């Protein structure tokens, strides 16, 4: 197992390299450079040129990339062109907030999604199934930003239960987490249901029903463990995606997360910061994929690694 993990980590390096080159090319395509944006709309051409030189943007692109790699080798992602602070420091300040939202949303959506999925599966074809799956598919169809706005109107403005913005108290985590969870909970409910049904099979379920309650529970528990394998994949993927930050939700709730940092960095053409956040997201994604695969092995001993 240790060897497998090591091999996967090594394989992740070319992917990260690819990501960093892709970011560099993307940056090159974006019209406007940090100097133009930093100088603002009253600046002279001189001023822009001077900032460009200060930031080393007058160098050819490959040289800029090599400098970036060189810095990276020394453990630095460079300095933000806007705040003049280490990119790692900027990200480190924001990341805990994104992590908290991601953990909260993954936990909530897994509990709710898997719960609803089980409920639907054991009530297959009956009202309980139709109602839960109806809720799930509606949940998949509602734009997240709409839910966030309705949430603010109802819980903050009408009922005064929750704060509108910020991340100062535990209450302020509720609305963003719920808004982020809706979609992933719906996805997980649907997957749990179908994989439970696959595992159980109709005959299986019928047998379980015919037997006593306790045995039915035993079978369910057994079925659940197998049914959770595909759910694990989804949890991993969703967690990886959430670690990239959810820009629209962070924007609506004024959340100090990585998503807003990254988008702001694009708007400011703060290239070291864009590069840093994208690499962070890529690392998070690759790591959560690895964790998922390891979990897989634990859940399903039939899978072996070579």
């Amino acid at each position, binding site marked *: 197992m240790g060897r497998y993990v090591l091999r996967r980590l090594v394989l992740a390096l070319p992917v990260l390299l690819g*990501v960093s080159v892709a970011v560099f090319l993307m940056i090159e395509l974006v019209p406007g450079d940090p100097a133009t944006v930093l100088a603002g709309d009253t600046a002279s051409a001189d001023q822009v040129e001077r900032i460009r030189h200060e930031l080393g943007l007058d160098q050819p692109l490959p040289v800029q990339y090599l400098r970036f790699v060189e810095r990276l080798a020394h453990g630095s992602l460079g300095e933000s062109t806007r705040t003049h602070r280490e990119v790692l420091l900027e990200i480190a300040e924001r990341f805990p907030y994104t992590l908290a939202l991601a953990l909260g949303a993954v936990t909530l959506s897994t509990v709710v999604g898997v719960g609803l999925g089980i409920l639907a599966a054991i009530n297959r074809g009956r009202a309980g199934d139709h109602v839960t799956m109806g809720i799930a598919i509606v949940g998949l169809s509602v734009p997240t930003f709409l839910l966030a706005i309705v949430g603010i109107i109802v819980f903050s403005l009408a009922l005064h239960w929750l704060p509108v913005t910020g991340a100062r108290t535990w209450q302020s985590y509720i609305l963003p987490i719920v808004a982020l969870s809706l979609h992933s909970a719906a996805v997980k409910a649907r997957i749990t249901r179908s994989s439970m049904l696959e595992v159980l099979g109709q005959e299986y379920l019928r047998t379980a029903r015919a037997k006593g309650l306790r045995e039915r529970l035993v079978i369910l528990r057994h079925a659940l463990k197998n049914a959770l394998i595909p759910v694990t994949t989804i949890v991993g993927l969703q967690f990886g995606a959430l670690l990239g930050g959810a820009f629209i939700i962070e924007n609506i709730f004024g959340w100090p997360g990585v998503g807003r940092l990254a988008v702001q960095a694009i708007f400011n053409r703060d290239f070291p910061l864009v590069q840093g*956040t994208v690499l962070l997201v890529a690392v998070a994604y690759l790591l959560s994929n690895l964790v998922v695969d390891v979990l897989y092995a634990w859940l399903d001993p039939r899978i072996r690694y070579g």
Partner: protein
Amino acid sequence: MASAVLAAAARRRRVTPLLRRVRRSPPLVVGLVLFGALLLMAAFAPLIAPADPIAIQVSERLQPPSAAHLFGTDDFGRDLFSRVVWGSRLAVRLGTLSVLVAATGGVALGLVAGYYRGWVDNLISRLLEVVLAFPGELFAIAIIAVLGPSLDNLIVALGLFGWPGYARLVRGSVLSAGQREYVEAARAIGARASRVMLRHILPNVVAPVIILSATRFGGALLAGSGLSFIGLGVPIPQPEWGAIMATGRDYIGSAWWIVVFPGVLIATAVLGVNLVGDGLRDVLDPRLGD
């Protein structure tokens, strides 16, 4: 005459089981009705919409729903019903084209990777991981920032990070045991690679690709409206649903209709395609069928 009748009967026999399965799947029926309504609305927008969707009529600003304006008017006095109806064209174009871009690229790469395996597969798989590891939302925002808000740029952005799903699906299916034998056999008798891929493998992955496309269509509508909502979607004054909602959120206290109608339409359209996807899975993938 007789042969024609016979042929028709044969055709009917062939299609009946599928049709019966369709009819027995209520989600599919509901989904097809909703999706069909969306397509009809888009096709006949000029006939359905009573007014020009971008014609400004300042004297009619912010009118609540009435007989004259079924869904009310917006902050420029434009007829909201007409805007929403014309907006369905943008939605259908966004959904269809972004799915098409993603599916074409993904299926092609998936076929190639699965067929040739070896270093080709390795290369494509790494590329796939790069795209998957890249934050998609950020990427879309960057593309729109690069090229400016437009429906086409939105389609490119959604298409570009939508292909890995298809590539994975197709690659997996080509590599699956049954397919592999089939391909080996075709190769053995000396069939050309492109022929094997297009004539023999592709038809077998059509069903899962269509199912995935239904989900993706809905996903594209949601992503597009989200980007429009933050001003990075389609250019003004086009009646994109997300963009209409973005104006409407400012008037949520005073003119609820601007947010509510396009919101309901987005949700209904996405619900429609999701139900179609679910239904198709039930119908085309008998393992899970009732």
